[in-house]
């Protein structure tokens, strides 16, 4: 097998279409007779829903129908099925597609209006009369767990959804053995996903075929089908769910949403195709976010800076429901102890309900939050001891010789967490060298002459990627000799089609141009899970690899029968099987495909199975752990507190890279997202749970003028846990970026204020914080 494509920065096959405006996103889909939906949403964070009067809306011009949940009686009832049940959640907590009696966050859907066009639907939605009785709301996860807190849901005696715990080693012994201990409290905040394409759904029902078809801007179309089939008590075969081009996902689009169900119910009821496109204001109140985690942790460490143990607790803001179970908080606990070898940890995380939009993973899920805490703690230990930040990391890292390294922790699937490969110290040394840490102080002094404060930031991370159990793939050669790859794994811009084609092209010696990829459509492949957790290169990538090898064997076997040559003397070349060294003696794959498609009455050669095709569900033999170290420089304007990231260097190891250009793109975008979490993105609510940031004037995203170029260096340690040796890279940029930037800000403040510099315990950090710190305040 010649690696012509694997490892090469091949230009993406997706791009040609997207560049000329021929993408097909949900809102680009049009169907004859299609109607448009607008939702009536809760204006209050907590209220009793006493009555809904749809009559005024129904009477408006262009309105075809208006529904509340009651109108769907007979089709389905009750709350949506939970996506990820967890034994600690005694009572699943999911919403109805349209609320019944109680509203638990601003934005919860109450009713839907169906009209000839979207403007008419939106206008009519305003005419729906809703009678509400306002109830006390809880808008802060810490307040939610106070004994006197109002209930987030009527009838629940506690706002504590679940209490999770992780523990290994003898924590008391670790703390007794330590020379030092410190306790710190942290507030981490992440906003929403803010994919540039909002969510959208098109649903249509074919009565004659009894078939429901859904297009949705989703990372998990197979989960949507599974949940919807459950809810509607239909067989999955009668539902097709497809994710067409999706304009970014970043986590929240992996949820299954009320609007997907409501559109399906509406289409079943009305027998007409329905479209709903979320607008940006809705995105702020109706698409899952991530928001807050608060932590108080105590660290034990030696005089030489080796970290021995961590204990403490956190509070996680679940929002009003738990559609995704406790995945986000459970993920947080799996992230300890990060890249550090510790003797013991004992950490609890309470999951609090609030009257806010539900939370679920946003790029990195809880990993960026925990990376923030761990990296801040390491920096704190360094300051406490007067050691360098890199010295404490060097003293505490898991070492290359310890691989595979069992952290002591337990993964979500119950297995023991074990880091598979790599050398964390090498990554750290390399990033320090690349950013020029040795002469940083010179740059710092020079910057001061320009009136700027310069800071150097540092952060390491390790990241579980490629979680199982599988994503599968089918490969099939068409009678014209083209290869079609089908997979359940949906894409949202990651370049899967290119990456998967690269893998197959090498195994089968087919030109990339002769390969098409069909992904994320339940009509094209039987099973799929979800594009989350940086898992597709590992799962789908290896499935394509395994299936391609099966297909290759089949083609060789056929040719060996036909040419009467041993399979070992055959090779694949340019879309044909040929006798090694005899280019003229060959059979094109197209001919084999046609022969294996069969002819009535003619047996297949050698009793072969029909079809030049193969399917594989690569089952991961354990999670692959990517890792890296980042360093950056920030420049602070002491007058305004304006903080710019001026340089950012990533050293990363995601195993063997299939397409370095795509990997770099994933990392760059991820870093910028993390810089947003460090400096800009802040989803705010008032005490009544009213969202305060619902436009891009109020909620700031990273923009081109403020963002640096990202310099990336790779270490390629093949993962021993899959045949391709790959690890995931989709979230690698985001995870360490916020702590890296915050560490740089603190470093700059230390330069100015010396020991009086604050220890920064939250993000995002605003210019106001910086100015207050420079003035000696608390930030």
């Amino acid at each position, binding site marked *: 097998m010649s690696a012509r494509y694997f490892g090469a920065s091949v230009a993406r096959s997706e791009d040609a279409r997207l560049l000329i405006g021929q*993408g097909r996103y949900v809102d680009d889909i049009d169907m004859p007779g299609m109607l448009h939906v607008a939702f009536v949403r809760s204006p209050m964070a907590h209220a009793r829903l006493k009555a809904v009067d749809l009559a005024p809306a129904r009477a408006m011009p262009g309105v075809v129908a208006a529904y509340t949940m009651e109108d769907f009686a007979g089709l389905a009832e009750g709350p949506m099925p939970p996506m990820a049940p967890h034994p600690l959640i005694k009572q699943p907590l999911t919403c109805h597609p349209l609320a019944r009696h109680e509203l638990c966050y601003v934005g919860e859907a109450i009713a839907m209006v169906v009209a000839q066009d979207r403007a008419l639907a939106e206008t009519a939605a305003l005419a729906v009369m809703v009678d509400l009785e306002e109830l006390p709301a809880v808008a802060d996860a810490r307040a939610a767990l106070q004994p006197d807190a109002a209930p987030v849901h009527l009838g629940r005696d506690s706002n504590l959804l679940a209490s999770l715990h992780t523990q290994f080693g003898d924590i008391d012994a670790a703390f007794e053995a330590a020379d030092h201990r410190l306790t710190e409290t942290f507030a981490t905040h992440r906003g929403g996903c803010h994919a*540039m394409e909002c969510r959208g759904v098109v649903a249509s029902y074919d009565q004659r075929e009894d078939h429901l078809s859904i297009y949705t801007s989703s990372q998990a179309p197979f989960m949507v089908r599974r949940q919807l089939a459950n809810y509607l008590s239909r067989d999955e075969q009668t539902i097709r769910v497809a994710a067409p081009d999706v304009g970014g996902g970043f986590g929240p689009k992996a949820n299954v949403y009320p609007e997907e169900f409501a559109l399906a119910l509406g289409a079943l009821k009305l027998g007409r195709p329905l479209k709903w496109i979320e607008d940006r204001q809705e995105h702020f109140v109706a698409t899952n976010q991530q928001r807050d985690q608060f932590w108080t942790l105590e660290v034990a460490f030696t005089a030489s800076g080796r970290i021995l143990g961590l204990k403490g607790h956190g509070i996680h803001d679940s929002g009003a429901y738990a559609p995704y179970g406790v995945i986000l908080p459970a993920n947080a606990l799996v992230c300890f102890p990060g890249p550090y070898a510790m003797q013991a940890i004992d950490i609890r995380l309470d999951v609090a309900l609030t009257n806010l939009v539900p939370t679920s993973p946003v790029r990195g899920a809880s990993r960026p939050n925990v990376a923030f805490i761990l990296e801040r703690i390491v920096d704190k230990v360094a300051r406490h001891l007067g050691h360098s930040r890199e010295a404490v990391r060097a003293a505490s890292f898991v070492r290359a010789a310890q691989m595979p390294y069992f952290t002591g922790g337990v993964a979500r699937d119950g297995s023991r967490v074990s880091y598979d490969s790599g050398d964390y110290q090498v990554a750290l040394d390399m990033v320090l060298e690349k950013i020029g840490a040795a002469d940083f102080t010179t740059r710092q002094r020079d910057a001061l002459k320009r009136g700027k404060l310069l800071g150097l930031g540092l952060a390491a991370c390790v990241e579980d990627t490629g979680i199982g159990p599988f994503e599968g793939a089918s490969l099939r050669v068409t009678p014209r000799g083209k290869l079609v790859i089908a997979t359940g794994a949906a894409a949202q811009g990651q370049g899967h089609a290119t990456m998967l084609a690269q893998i197959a092209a090498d195994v089968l010696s087919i030109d990339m141009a002769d390969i098409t990829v069909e992904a994320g459509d339940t009509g094209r492949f039987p099973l799929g899970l979800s594009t989350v957790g940086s898992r597709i290169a590992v799962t789908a990538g290896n499935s394509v690899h395994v299936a391609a090898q099966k297909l290759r064997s089949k083609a060789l076997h056929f040719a060996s029968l036909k040419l009467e040559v041993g399979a070992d003397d055959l090779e694949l070349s340019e879309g044909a099987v040929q006798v090694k060294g005899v280019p003229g003696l060959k059979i094109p794959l197209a001919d084999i495909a046609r022969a294996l498609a069969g002819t009535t009455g003619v047996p297949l050669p050698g009793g072969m199975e029909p079809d030049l095709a193969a399917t594989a569900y690569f089952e991961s033999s354990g999670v692959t752990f990517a890792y890296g170290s980042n360093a950056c420089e920030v420049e602070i304007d002491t007058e305004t507190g304006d903080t710019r990231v001026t340089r950012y260097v990533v050293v990363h190891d995601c195993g063997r890279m299939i397409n370095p250009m795509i990997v770099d793109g994933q990392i760059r975008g991820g870093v910028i997202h993390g810089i947003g979490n460090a400096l800009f993105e802040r989803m705010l609510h008032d005490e009544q749970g009213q969202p305060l940031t619902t436009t891009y004037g109020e909620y700031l995203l990273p923009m081109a003028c403020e963002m640096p170029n990202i310099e990336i260096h790779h270490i390629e340690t093949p993962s021993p846990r899959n045949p391709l040796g790959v690890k995931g890279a989709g979230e690698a940029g985001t995870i360490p970026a916020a702590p890296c930037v915050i560490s740089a800000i603190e470093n700059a403040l230390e330069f100015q204020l010396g020991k009086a510099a604050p220890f920064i315990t939250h993000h995002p950090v605003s210019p106001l914080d910086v100015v207050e710190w420079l003035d000696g305040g608390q930030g």
Partner: protein
Amino acid sequence: MTAMLTLTVNGRDMSAAAPANMHLGDFLRHVLGLTGTHMGCEHGVCGSCTVIVDGQPVRACLMLARQAQGARIETVEGLAQDGRLSPLQAAFRDHHALQCGFCTPGMLMTLTALLRDVPNPGESEIRAAISGNICRCTGYQGIVEAALAVATRNEASTS
């Protein structure tokens, strides 16, 4: 309150009915079927909807369709000529300037307008030009590199 509009889109004369409250973005997408122009925020901040109106980059979500009466409009569908990508489009592909592709039409139109005005802009001019275009995927670097590559080529061909 629907009125007939006559305008030129990508060099072709067109006329179609537009309701009074319809913005240019919806008109292009849903009346003319030119779905390459994307709506990312519909409040004038993200720049996904950018098209060129009489030579100027304009946010199609902030302009009523009726205001385009008689205008000359260019959209992403008009950039490639005879099936060949424009130099900027090709540079986007070569520099991995797009991932999900949703911001891409707006970026292309904004930068196409810039490169006509300033044939060889520097990095800061390019970043300033797209300071009103949000991309959540790429971190902007590939987009800037793509525009710089075209700028450098323009410079080489004029010197």
